[in-house]
């Protein structure tokens, strides 16, 4: 049977469970004897801990334990970096609990283990913490001034400067006919998940086994870290993945609580659960995005870009977390995006500040650079009196130049090149589908009190990070096949997509794929998880390998049974057939299992273009999205419905970051946005007019599926395109947005400044 599940809009298998309220989240787990952990967090942004006195707290009714740094022999272990683990970063890594200093509001100081969360929260008030406050570093400027140090032994607050380089930028600038220099900023926001984080740990003292529920994203890596920290053999720890309400890069990285809760379970000898509440979530989950850049572009008169040069400064928060360097690194390497720029030198410096540490958030570094670069391009077009679309078309990397090398990045060089694509084709498709030619006539027009603005921008999206993923197939007693995979489910629909891939590869109907078991460490020998838009490409390719291996096993077993050669065995949907009428059913080989793997050193590059039509009520600064279209080519499409869902979902998040979401701090490092009344998240009704078109013109040449990562593209362009549309609408006032989020107040201020100037 030649299946074609791959490519079909198969309905998501997991949805039935969710819409019936039968999902199982970590907070749904309530084993006998369960205790609840509540965390005392620093209310100071920066300070020295003089003393912590919990003697009154432990005596309170219902309190089982209060854990502080002192309870950890040898001091609190550090959380190692998972990505770019450079020795220079080690002094900046976070310990699992504050020991001598606190460095951000929200840093864990003590853990109360109690019979209920309410009892635990009441008990927090009884812990006496004496902290000597130190002046806070609340932004990059203060960090760079260097008179307030987060880590005194380091002597400076700069953890690293990345440099991305190709050609000779300085020479190109000297010779260029046209140069423009600009400053831009992006605000601080993050991958807020509707279900906050949670951990439930069970310690079996008799067998020395630890079971940790609530694992997500990278359970195998986290198990290695936890084993090391707890002094346990890796295989005595099981990390269990549950249903999750969102990942976005933030959930599933190793956080302090991922040690503290297992430690508390072993300490008390009881199962212990911790569920992050929303206030904690806003101050404990990885922040992201806050960067500022001074950037210069050099062009010929015809708009050909000759060189790009600049220096970005990234507000890292208080510690280098597991993947904290990724966005800063990407800002340096991806400033040029999908454009052919022969000479580049972009630096990116990482500044420690007394704020919640940063980590990756969907499209890390790319959302930021796309705002910087696409804004700059529209300014160039205006200066040189060129059509904005023509300027982009002229400078996009031509299809004939694929694979195209990215600028070299240092330190931690990673050879990388763009795999395939025709960027002009997606731009043209976007313009056509959007109706650009007609809509562009509205540019700057005032109709019924609102100014209309249009913009278009192009992006690339990296995916499919290596090194490896593992998959296993097992034949069930009823002849159906179970899929086990190292990839994690964070809402992407992998249970459906992997079932499609497996059914096609095994050439059996989809309903004979009994289930897709993902993430948990028990399922495969090794796994790498869900990050960098990698699950489908890496896990899917590993599944193809596992299928080949399973078929070989079946052939060998069947050949033995029928007394023939393995090559004489035919496997089909109906069963296994040998020579001379011999045959068997899949069920006859129940229990057969085969693992497969896929290794990858290169990345896939999805690409596309976004176009937006906005209106602005200039009197109040209010922006409305009238129409927004994202065109994405992501290589082979496994499921057009789930890909479109990814694009629309990430687009809504991108618009949230561009227009609404903003983590605000005051000069003392106090977080001012401590609830969802103050941190404005887009809701389902805020952006009704979004469209997504997904194409598969350029399958990736670097994996057997031909697929490319597609989880992030929607978010990447949002800031730049919306800001350009607003500039286009408000051209009469000379409005040029240089900072995100584009709040109504900022828009109003720019309009007012423009009114005064004219």
């Amino acid at each position, binding site marked *: 049977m030649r299946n074609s599940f791959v490519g079909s809009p198969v309905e998501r298998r997991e949805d039935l469970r969710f819409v019936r309220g039968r999902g199982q989240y970590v907070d749904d787990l309530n084993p006998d004897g369960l205790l609840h952990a509540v965390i005392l967090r620093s209310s100071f942004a920066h300070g020295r801990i003089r003393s912590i006195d919990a003697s009154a707290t432990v005596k309170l009714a219902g309190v089982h334990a209060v854990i502080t740094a002192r309870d950890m022999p040898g001091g609190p272990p550090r959380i190692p970096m998972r990505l770019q683990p450079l020795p220079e970063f080690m002094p900046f890594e976070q310990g699992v609990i504050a020991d001598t200093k606190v460095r951000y509001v929200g840093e864990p100081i003590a853990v109360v283990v109690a019979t*209920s*969360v*309410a009892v635990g*929260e*009441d008990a927090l008030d009884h812990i006496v913490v004496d902290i000597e406050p130190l002046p806070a570093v609340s932004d990059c400027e203060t960090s760079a001034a260097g008179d307030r140090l987060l880590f005194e032994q380091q002597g400076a607050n700069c953890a690293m400067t990345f440099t991305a380089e190709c050609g000779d930028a300085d020479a190109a600038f000297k010779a260029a006919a046209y140069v423009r220099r600009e400053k831009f900023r992006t605000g601080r926001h993050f991958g807020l998940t509707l279900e906050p984080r949670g951990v439930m740990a069970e310690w079996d003292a008799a067998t020395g086994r630890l079971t940790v529920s609530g694992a997500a994203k990278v359970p195998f890596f986290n198990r290695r870290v936890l084993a090391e920290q707890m002094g346990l053999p890796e295989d005595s720890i099981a990390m269990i993945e549950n249903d999750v309400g969102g990942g976005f890069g933030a959930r599933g990285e190793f956080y302090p609580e991922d040690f503290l809760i297992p430690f508390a379970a072993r300490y008390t000898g009881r199962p212990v659960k911790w569920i992050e*509440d*929303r*206030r904690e979530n806003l101050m404990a989950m990885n922040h992201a995005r806050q960067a500022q850049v001074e950037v210069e572009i050099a062009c010929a008169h015809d708009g050909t870009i000759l060189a790009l040069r600049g220096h970005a400064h990234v507000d890292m928060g208080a510690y280098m977390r597991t993947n904290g360097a990724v966005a800063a690194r990407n800002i340096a390497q991806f400033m040029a995006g999908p454009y052919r720029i022969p000479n580049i030198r972009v630096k990116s410096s990482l500044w420690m500040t007394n704020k919640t540490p940063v980590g990756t958030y969907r499209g890390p570094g790319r959302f930021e650079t796309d705002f910087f670069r696409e804004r700059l391009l529209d300014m160039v077009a205006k200066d040189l009196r060129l059509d904005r679309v023509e300027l982009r078309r002229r400078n996009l990397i031509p299809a004939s130049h694929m694979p195209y090398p990215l600028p070299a990045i240092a330190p931690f060089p990673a050879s990388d090149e763009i795999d395939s694509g025709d960027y002009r084709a997606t731009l043209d498709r976007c313009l056509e589908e959007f109706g650009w030619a007609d809509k562009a006539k509205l540019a700057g027009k005032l109709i*019924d*009190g*609102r100014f209309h603005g249009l913009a278009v921008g192009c992006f690339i999206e990296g995916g499919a990070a290596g090194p490896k993923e593992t998959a296993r197939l097992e034949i069930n007693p009823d002849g159906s096949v179970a899929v086990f995979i190292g990839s994690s489910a964070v809402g992407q629909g992998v249970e459906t997509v992997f079932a499609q891939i497996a059914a096609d590869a095994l050439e059996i109907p989809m309903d004979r794929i009994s289930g897709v078991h993902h993430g948990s460490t028990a399922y495969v020998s090794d796994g790498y998880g869900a990050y960098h838009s990698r699950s489908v490409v890496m896990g899917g390719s590993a599944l193809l390998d596992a299928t080949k291996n399973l078929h070989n096993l079946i052939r060998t077993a069947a050949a033995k049974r029928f007394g023939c050669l393995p090559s004489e065995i035919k496997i089909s949907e109906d069963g296994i057939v040998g020579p001379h009428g011999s045959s068997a059913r899949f069920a006859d080989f129940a229990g057969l299992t085969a693992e497969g793997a896929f290794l990858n050193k290169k990345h896939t590059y999805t690409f596309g273009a976004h176009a937006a039509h906005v209106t602005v*009520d200039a*009197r*109040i*600064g*209010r922006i409305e999205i009238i129409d927004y279209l994202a065109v994405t080519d992501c290589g082979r499409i496994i499921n057009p419905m789930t890909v479109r869902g990814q694009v629309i979902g990430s687009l809504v998040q991108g618009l949230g970051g561009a227009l*609404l979401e903003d983590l*605000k701090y005051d000069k003392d490092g106090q977080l*001012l*946005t401590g*609830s969802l*009344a*103050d941190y*404005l998240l*887009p*809701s389902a*009704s*805020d952006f009704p007019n979004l469209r997504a078109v997904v194409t598969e013109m350029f399958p990736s040449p670097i994996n057997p599926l031909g697929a490319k990562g597609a989880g992030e593209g929607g978010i990447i362009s949002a800031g730049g395109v919306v800001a350009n549309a607003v500039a286009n609408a408000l051209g009469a006032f000379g409005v040029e947005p240089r900072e995100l989020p584009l*709040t*109504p*107040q900022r828009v*109003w*201020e720019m309009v*007012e400044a423009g009114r005064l100037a004219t």
Partner: protein
Amino acid sequence: MKLPAFDYACPATLAEALALLASRDDAKALAGGQSLVPMMAFRIASPSLLVDLRRLSDLRKIAIDTSGVRLGAMVRWRDIEDDARLNGAHPLLKAAVSHVAHYQIRNRGTVGGSIAHADPAAEMPGIAVTCDADIAVTGTRGARVICADDFFIAPLMTALAADEIITEIRLPAWPPRRRWGFREFSRRRGDFALAAAAVFFDVDDAGKAYNAHIGAIGVGDRPARLPAAEAEVNGQVVDIAISERAGRAASASVDPQSDIHASGAYRKSLIGTMVERALQSAAGMSAL
């Protein structure tokens, strides 16, 4: 974010409720819980006793007669939305309430709770002040009526004594030919207003406005009428120019604080625009 421990009572009569409320210094009435419960979760409030008013069915009525509209304190936003009589009896109230929060919250939140909570950015206190409403309250020492302008003192501070319960909000009668407008700007639909304007005026035979009431929400520490803006409207035929003048007067007569949601200068500008647009809408001119 878990509530502190508290006692709970759900009395069947107003007299019982009043006795319970008076029984402890830190007892509090519980209506829809949409403001009080979050405050308890954040531990900004920790009353030791909650007196739930939900069984006091007398407080759930909407009465409409020639004297005006009387809203029982336990009338929910949802009840106002659903009551077709109010389309004619008080269209301004109806328009304002459509901006309150989200569906789920409108199913629980009450008029009395909003008035007692006295958030300067809330719609209902703004309507009460704009419309010269009377607020009827009862305590163990008896009942009294406080006019809205005297009721609201500062953010979350009112003339209500700790042992008093609001029973009714009385909005004066609404003449059928009255002109009105309501404009609000908030970041997302259902959010508290960054600034809102509630306006109405009556029109004489010459088409001139009199009895102008212009109320501002979200731009001070309590809702307030803006006499300077009203003065621009009274005696005039409301047109673009008059609405712009009233808007400028409105801006000039407030001095809002800056907070994380908006700067004072921005809010000052917003209220002018809201007043201008609400007046244009009242005058039947197309307005944003």
